[in-house]
């Protein structure tokens, strides 16, 4: 019998707690596969955020530090400076990376901190039950924008890749999506490139992954993928923003 598919050993056997149709799991697998392919698992330290992926430390088969909400880039900085041989990545949601942790994100990038940020943009605060996020789009309905995000009151969303691309310390940032096979492949390529650049000591790398939150979007998994394509992609265009 030939084995045609195997789970990467960089993921543990722990059953993921994510909701059905949530693409956090897909992104986990891509990161894990890349770590395995680069053969760096043993010296990798992941930084878990506060958000739905808080328990990433249970899923990845590498060392992990759980960080306070938004502080993952600062924690990653501490780990990397203490042990420059380690491969360090943060895994953060949009609330974590682009609201409470904006300062930590921008300055880790500005310093050219040699770490990789995996930024999961699902336009919403998933873990706390679907509140408006810094990436919630104009008109988008959430628990705390029940009439749709009113830009007069709540302002505009932040396009993280575009913003970070202006910084000299950012070595690489790309926005990808995990809505279909083709894009999943491209996402993996981007993630691999980010880690390769870290290994080459190039500086701050970030991959923004457009991701679904069926539970808080109030859509089923298939509808969610459609919504991601139709609503998110025009507002958050895929592509390389800094290289």
């Amino acid at each position, binding site marked *: 019998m030939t084995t045609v598919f195997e789970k990467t050993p960089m993921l543990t056997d722990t059953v993921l707690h994510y909701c059905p149709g949530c693409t956090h799991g897909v992104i986990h697998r891509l990161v894990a596969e890349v770590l395995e392919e680069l053969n760096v698992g043993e010296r990798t330290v992941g930084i878990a955020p506060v958000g739905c992926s808080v328990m990433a430390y249970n899923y990845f088969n590498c060392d992990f530090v759980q960080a306070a909400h938004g502080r993952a880039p600062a924690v990653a900085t501490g780990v990397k400076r*203490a042990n420059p041989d380690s491969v360090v990545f943060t895994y953060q949601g949009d609330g974590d990376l682009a609201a409470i942790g904006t300062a930590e994100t921008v300055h880790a990038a500005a310093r050219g901190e040699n770490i990789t940020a995996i930024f999961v943009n699902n336009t919403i605060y998933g873990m706390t039950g679907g509140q408006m996020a810094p990436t919630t789009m104009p008109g988008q309905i959430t628990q705390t924008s029940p009439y749709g995000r009113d830009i007069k009151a709540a302002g505009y969303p932040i396009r993280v890749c575009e913003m970070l691309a202006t910084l000299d310390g950012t070595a690489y940032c790309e926005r990808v999506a995990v809505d279909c096979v083709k894009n999943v492949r491209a996402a993996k390529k981007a993630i691999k490139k980010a880690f390769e650049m870290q290994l080459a000591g190039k500086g701050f790398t970030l991959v923004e992954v457009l991701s679904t939150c069926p539970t808080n979007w109030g859509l089923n998994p298939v509808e969610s993928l459609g919504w991601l394509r139709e609503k998110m992609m025009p507002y958050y265009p895929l592509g390389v923003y800094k290289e």
Partner: protein
Amino acid sequence: MSKRILIKGNEAIAEAAIASGCRHFFGYPITPQNELAAHMSRRLPKIGGCYLQAESEVAAINMVYGASAAGVRCMTSSSSPGISLKTEGLSYLAGCDLPAVVINVQRGGPGLGSIQPSQADYFQAVKGGGHGDYRMIVLAPNSVQEMYSHTCKAFDLADQYRLTVMILTDGFLGQMMEPMTVESGQLTVDSEKDWAVGGKRGKRIVNSLFLKPADLEKSNLERFERYKLVEESEPLHEGYMLDDAEIVVAAYGATSRITRNAIDEARSQGVKAGLLRPVTVWPFPKKAFAKAAEHARAFVSAEMSMGQMIEDVELAIRCRRPVLLCSRVGGMAPEPKQIFDAILQADKEAAR
């Protein structure tokens, strides 16, 4: 071999950290601790260390959290408003049982307050400050020499008990220049950190999240077992004319030095006054106070705060004697005369 040098308190702390093997410092500018960070920025790059000016105190303490998780000796320093920002990190450090050394060169508050010396962060340091049940060992030096020796001790205690040790000092001691003896051979050896991440030693997790309440309770209870050991083994105090004192003045840090003059004055006028100086403010030297209450008729708590340490004095002596407050705040320091008057007042009160 020992060497005698003239140095500022803030710089003495920096030198002590380096002597203790600390090679990672994360800070953010704030007066009156700037000389400390500046000294680190001069020294660390020359010895293969890392000085990093963070974007905020929040980031700095979280860098300490990361570096400590990776197993190195590391430190951050700040002054009152900056320490408020660090409290989130202090709670996480405690929740993960990570060792760290944090310096607070206190200034007047609340709010932006002043840049002058103060002791008004006492509660924040010894009662918590951040969320959740946790403790820090808090050392209160009163000379430049002790700024050095306490910092060396802080790194050892932090590793030994896996907790944060704070040096609670103030703008006086930070800015003051004094001669100091540097003992060679004070460098201590890092203990094996079998919990540190990033070293090909099997999967390791540094985390303070517990989904099951029973697990979280267990982790709290285990931590408090360690705190109990600290409370049994680590309280330190210093007495001055204490053994026969009828009026005992409690004072720590810079205030304890001013108090000595008041004690001398009182003694010269026939009042049996003495000083009981907590050297560790947590653990508070409760036994020393209980013992002093056996011969003391009254206590005075001399502090540059509106009556914070006085609560620990009252608790330690179980309110068996009157305790008077003698305080100046806002960047003002008590003069010996004010403490002397408080001693006479306490003497009168005890006679009633």
